[in-house]
């Protein structure tokens, strides 16, 4: 059997050699903590003993949450199979039931990644409506399969992969008139939206747009699909789902990332049984015409069941309250800096928008990046993230807008840690200002 010590010593170099050398080089150049060898008490620890708070969001319940790891261990101590050849998997059944109890959606399709679940939703909408067109919003990020990349915001994550899935198109973000015009012909299968665009710059959908979206999709018989990969599982503090209080509940909701407890890859497309049967209920063959092999394994479901148990109403409320405090604290601390634009977001999903410093020695070119590889993006978020690594915080740049860095803390992060974080951001912004 492979030795874990050996993997944690040599595997980082093996990643660079056999997986993706560019990711490894980018991480090294940006000064990202790479050789992380332990996760303890919610923190990551590198080979030299430095600790890091991870703000990616996938680890909402902490890295290696003891409740989730214990549930997995307990499952592994049984003799129950993880995969069922008939596909009638009792663990999937139990998880779908619990998801119904928590969200109200009584039909589930499981996959491994958010992209899997989005792909399932797009095909579901086509199957149900038999309509050709699929709408997304500008600034979207729904994953990297062909269906989801066809809805992606224009840029380096999308453009090289054309031509895209026929019938997919984008509506300007928050533009009610454009949405109404696009839906008017009555040939749109679905509209796919993120309640808060993550990679697009932590932009929450404006309330008037949500109202119009709910109303217009109903009027035209178009499915409303909410991509809650980032916002789901209590992240926004508005409920298990961010869309719970929308005027009309979406017909389809997609969740992933923290659903698997940060340990197992798992995603889900949730809908209503009535719609599922209408789409796929003609015969047995249709009933499994969209499928995957390892989308549902008992071990993933066990992790998700444990994660759902951890997602108590108290935790969701804390996300709302602590998120509001963090937003206000960041705004108070950074207001006055000429590089500060705004803090955006809801609950524990936040973004800080900044201006780049105006000096040639703080440029991608001077930092050693090939300028053709940065696609005209702002330097400021990668620079801020670089500075924050040194302070023990692992932040992330929004994929479509490098003027913002994203904060999606673990749910149990101590308030004192966030207080330290606010001070660190303030100090580092002052440092960057001083470079001008």
């Amino acid at each position, binding site marked *: 059997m492979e030795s874990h*010590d*050996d993997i944690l*010593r040599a595997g980082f170099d093996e990643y660079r050699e056999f997986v993706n*050398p560019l990711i490894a*080089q980018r991480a090294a150049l940006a000064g990202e903590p790479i050789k992380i060898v332990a996760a303890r008490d919610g923190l990551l620890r590198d080979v030299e003993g430095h600790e890091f708070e991870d703000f990616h969001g996938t680890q909402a319940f902490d890295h290696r949450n003891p409740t989730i790891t214990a549930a997995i261990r307990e499952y592994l101590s049984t003799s129950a199979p993880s995969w069922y050849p008939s596909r009638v998997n009792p663990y999937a059944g139990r998880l779908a039931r619990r998801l119904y109890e928590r969200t109200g959606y009584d039909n589930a399709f499981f996959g491994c990644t958010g992209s899997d679940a989005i792909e399932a939703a797009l095909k579901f909408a086509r199957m149900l409506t038999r309509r050709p067109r699929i709408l997304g919003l500008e600034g979207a990020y729904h994953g990297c399969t062909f269906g989801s990349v066809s809805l992606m915001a224009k840029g380096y994550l999308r453009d090289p992969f054309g031509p895209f899935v026929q019938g997919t198109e984008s509506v300007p973000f928050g533009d009610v008139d454009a949405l109404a015009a696009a839906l008017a012909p009555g040939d749109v299968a679905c509209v796919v939206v993120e309640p808060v665009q993550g990679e697009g710059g932590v932009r929450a959908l404006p309330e008037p747009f949500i109202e119009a979206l709910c109303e217009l999709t109903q009027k035209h018989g178009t499915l409303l699909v909410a991509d809650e990969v980032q916002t789901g599982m209590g992240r926004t503090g508005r409920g298990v789902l961010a869309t719970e209080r929308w005027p009309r509940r979406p017909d389809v909701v997609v969740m992933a990332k923290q659903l698997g407890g940060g340990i197992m890859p798992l995603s889900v497309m949730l809908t209503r049984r009535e719609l599922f049967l209408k789409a796929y209920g003609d015969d047995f063959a249709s009933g499994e015409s969209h499928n995957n092999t390892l989308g549902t394994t008992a071990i993933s479901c066990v992790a998700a069941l444990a994660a759902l148990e951890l997602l108590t109403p108290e935790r969701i409320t804390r996300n709302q309250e602590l998120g509001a405090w963090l937003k206000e604290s960041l705004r108070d601390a950074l207001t006055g800096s000429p590089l500060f634009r705004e803090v955006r977001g809801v609950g524990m999903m936040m973004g800080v928008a900044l201006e780049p410093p105006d*000096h040639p020695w*703080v440029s991608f070119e001077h930092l050693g990046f090939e300028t053709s*590889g940065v696609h005209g993006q702002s330097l400021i978020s990668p*620079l801020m993230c670089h500075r924050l690594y040194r302070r023990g915080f692992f932040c992330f740049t929004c994929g479509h807008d490098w003027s913002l860095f994203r904060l999606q803390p673990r749910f149990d992060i101590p308030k004192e840690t966030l207080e330290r974080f606010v001070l660190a951001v303030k100090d580092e912004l002052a440092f960057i200002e001083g*470079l001008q």
Partner: protein
Amino acid sequence: MSKLLEGSRCLVTGGSRGLGRAISLAFARHGARVAFTYRRDTASADETARMLRDAGAPEPIVLQGTVTDSAHAKQAVDAVVSAWGAIDVLVNCAAVMQVLPISLLEEQDFDNVMAVNVKGVYLFSRAALRPMIRAKSGSILNIGNFSSERVIEAPVHYAASKSAVRGLTEALAREVGRYGIRVNLLAPGMLDTGLALGMPQHRMREYIDQCPMHRVGRADEIAELAAFLVSSESSFISGAKIAADGGL
């Protein structure tokens, strides 16, 4: 293969990983007894020790500490002398490399790189010279880098530290040559380890385009040269900078 270092008692700083490991293993292949230091990565140090044993080398001496600590330097040299009776070879390989443009390079970054890469060489050389001078014999090999002089846009503190080591090498060679002690600088080009790991693709392409041999070096190639330079085969080479960079 003739063994260049049969019975030699060698101490390699920063010997647990990368070039330091390659040098330790090459020395062992050449019949040396090897002691090496490392800072924190115990797993890598254990792995290097295992590799030395697997290569049939005598039990290595493994010493944990930072080269910026004079007590650690003294203890490391004392451990070698106490176990093997003398120290014949010191290789100052421990170094830190940090890719930062000057705009983001803070005083503490500069101090840290200079402390490890320059002061560490001074401390270990000073500690090793006490028994070497008494024995009127010994060889010190410092590891420099091509980035100290030319070719690429290297981080300035790293480049400065490697230039300082060159000056230290030349001065020390003059001072201790009278005791039969040689001090040299081995300056590798870009290798498949160290600086190259943090280099962006386009800079790497530029480097390889400029290198007449159109490739980076391998750590084992440099390690073989190191074995030669500390051996009696190079008994009249001192105060030299020997580049191994594919002809840059």
